[in-house]
């Protein structure tokens, strides 16, 4: 379950970052930050090939003791990073992919909004609700999820 979802801009600054539980936010922020290196590494690895051929879903970036970090990058170098609780083993790769797809779609909708300046923090309520649903959903799926207690901040 996504305990933390972050959207990082091309210049590697966060456009949106949200995590649950909220008390350990800083830890998640650090994890996201360090994962950016891995993302860049993955991007450059396949950099020779055309951008079009590069897959958007990067997969597991790196696992830690408690969490797994997944990455996804768009063609415009906007990165989505998702931190998932390791205890939730029920989450399959497909599900992670679908979650990223939803994130991407919501992000696209945000970009479509003419009142949104690219580069601003994402304050869209629709985006928030989508991320919320993703977090909750992930939580609900994994009964053993630790974050469940802190839920819904």
């Amino acid at each position: 379950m996504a305990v933390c979802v972050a959207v990082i801009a091309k210049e590697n600054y966060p456009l949106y970052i949200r995590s649950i539980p909220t008390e350990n936010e800083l830890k998640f922020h650090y994890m996201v930050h360090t994962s950016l290196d891995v993302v860049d590494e993955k991007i450059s690895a396949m950099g020779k090939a055309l951008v079009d051929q590069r897959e958007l879903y990067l997969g597991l970036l790196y696992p830690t003791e408690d969490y797994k970090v997944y990455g996804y990058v768009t063609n415009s170098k906007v990165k989505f990073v998702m931190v998932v609780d390791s205890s939730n083993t029920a989450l399959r790769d497909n599900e992670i992919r679908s979650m990223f797809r939803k994130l991407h779609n919501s992000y696209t909708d945000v970009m479509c909004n003419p009142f949104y300046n690219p580069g601003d923090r994402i304050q869209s309520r629709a985006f928030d609700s989508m991320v919320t649903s993703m977090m909750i959903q992930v939580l609900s799926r994994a009964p053993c999820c630790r974050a469940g207690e802190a839920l819904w901040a």
Partner: protein
Amino acid sequence: MEGLTLSDAEQKYYSDLFSYCDIESTKKVAANGRVLELFRAAQLPNDVVLQIMELCGATRLGYFGRSQFYIALKLVAVAQSGFPLRVESINTVKDLPLPRFVASKNEQESRHAASYSSDSENQGSYSGVIPPPPGRGQVKKGSVSHDTVQPRTSADQQEPASPVVSPQQSPPTSPHTWRKHSRHPSGGNSERPLAGPGPFWSPFGEAQSGSSAGDTVWSGHSPPPPQETWVSFADTPPTSTLLTMHPASVQDQTTVRTVASATTANEIRRQSSSYDDPWKITDEQRQYYVNQFKTIQPDLNGFIPGSAAKEFFTKSKLPILELSHIWELSDFDKDGALTLDEFCAAFHLVVARKNGYDLPEKLPESLMPKLIDLEDSADVGDQPGEVGYSGSPAEAPPSKSPSMPSLNQTWPELNQSSEDTAIVHPVPIRMTPSKIHMQEMELKRTGSDHTNPTSPLLVKPSDLSEESKINSSVKFASGNTVDGYSSSDSFTSDPEQIGNNVTHQRSHSGTSPDNTAPPPPPPRPQPSHSRSSSLDMNRTFAVTTGQQQAGVVAHPPAVPPRPQPSQAPGPIVHRPVDADGLITHTSTSPQQIPEQPNFADFSQFEVFAASNVNEEQDDEAEKHPEVLPVEKASDPASSLRVAKTDSKIEEKTAASVPANVSKGTTPLAPPPKPVRRRLKSEDELRPEVDEHTQKTGVLAAVLASQPSIPRSVGKDKKAIQASIRRNKETNTVLARLNSELQQQLKDVLEERISLEVQLEQLRPFSHL
């Protein structure tokens, strides 16, 4: 009736009143409105009035004669004084004050009354005025009709009559005098006359002033006085209703056509009060929104791009965050542009927000865009996006942001627009069916031999794509292709026809060469003359069949060949131009050919006149890549292929080239390379690449069919002449093909431009 003795004042007063009531000056006052009003103004209970009337004998007479009137008035005074109504009291009651008639509730009247009471001079003048007889009365309009007097008769007599007699001229005095009189019932005589008519006058005066605005007077009265009389008044009801409506109508009209919060607030408040759904848009609002939409986008079925909408809504001075949220709510199809419905919803939300309403989390039902069309109401919200999108494809691309949904949506447009040109995106897809078809056709046409040649052709999707394009353009220049698949199918069928045609043409030409040259390759190759396919097929056939090739080889001189798109067209072109030249060309071409490694195949093809057919196919494919590098600079037209597709084609063609080469080499080994004409025509061919590609195919086919085209100069003159003839025929065919290809080229270029434009639009985002 007993005699009525009236004091002077009473006399005067009564006479004035009588005059007032006696509208017709008939000395008889019927129970008309004025009398009734007068009695009403007396503020006496109805029954008392009735009694008075009875007593005075009016009921008996049916009208008020002067005496009756006087008696009535007297009785009124008696009643007002509190004395019991009795006939005897008329005379018995002494010092009866003049009957008081309450003035109408008009403010004017009260004002007048006040002024009257305070104005003594008026009294004087008033008195002077009094004597004059009746006549004057008009002024008193509604004054007499006062609510106090219950209408006994029908309400239609409400009209406040104001046949005020003389005193009217000095209205101010009357109320004054009247008041005074009331206060001092036995005031001085001097005042009496004034006072008498005073009360009467006051209403007159007021009526006078109010006569002009009788309606307003009435209306003014309507709201405050909750009197039945008002209601009964014929005039008042309408006016009162008018009044009551007035504020409402005022509100309606003031639902301002601006984003002004006040009016819209009223609107909204009224809405919310009148409707359960506070988000419903009224017709006026809707009309206003539509007008605003028109200022931005005249086409009601069109879209407002996001940037324009942003500017527009920014003017509302709402914070960007809220505007962003409003946009999210209202852009139902998430396409970055607003349809009319979406715009109305957004505007409505803006208005609501400005009036203090909080924005909802979800778009309210009533604001959901039903359809793009205002008239339609059946479709659901998401449809409008699509419908609108398809409805205005022209503006869609530029207006939509390159989001994924919009991207997806733009594609259909491309497909639609590129109907006529076979060059659509899914080139490879189309190819397969056509390939298959061509294969089948080839099989049918030629038999086993064809199978082999056809297979390699199939290997080259690019070739086919080119061919299909060419086929479509050539064959169905008239726009057969509705979509890729169908077009490919048609291609397959058409090539056959074309091939047949060409074969026919070639067949006869081919016959002659048969005589002179070694068995020229049967015209078969043209199973599908449609150029590209037929070319390849032909080529393959020529390749596979040595005989054919030999025959083709024999004819090389005539066919300048394909070897390269530039080359191939060249020789072809040359042929018609100069028969001799052709021969010479042919002689020279072979030498030129070998110089170009890429043209290895071509040269071979060249060799085989018949192989031209194959060459054409390969040539086209090869020519494309070769042409591209060679002629790209020189001949922009040659870039039939869009930049994007070019690379692919090049790759494919490059891949296919070697295959062709291999194919060609093997069979071509035997045939010499006399056909070097290509080379010489290269230069000439270059500019004509486009045509050549197609033409070469045709040429190849033609050439193939013209086994007579002698490649070597050593042919007999007859043979040469025959070949010339054939060449000319071929030339005409090629010319036709050329024109068709050129047309197709134009279409393709347009397609390319549109694609590039779209690419440009997408590119910036990829740079993010």
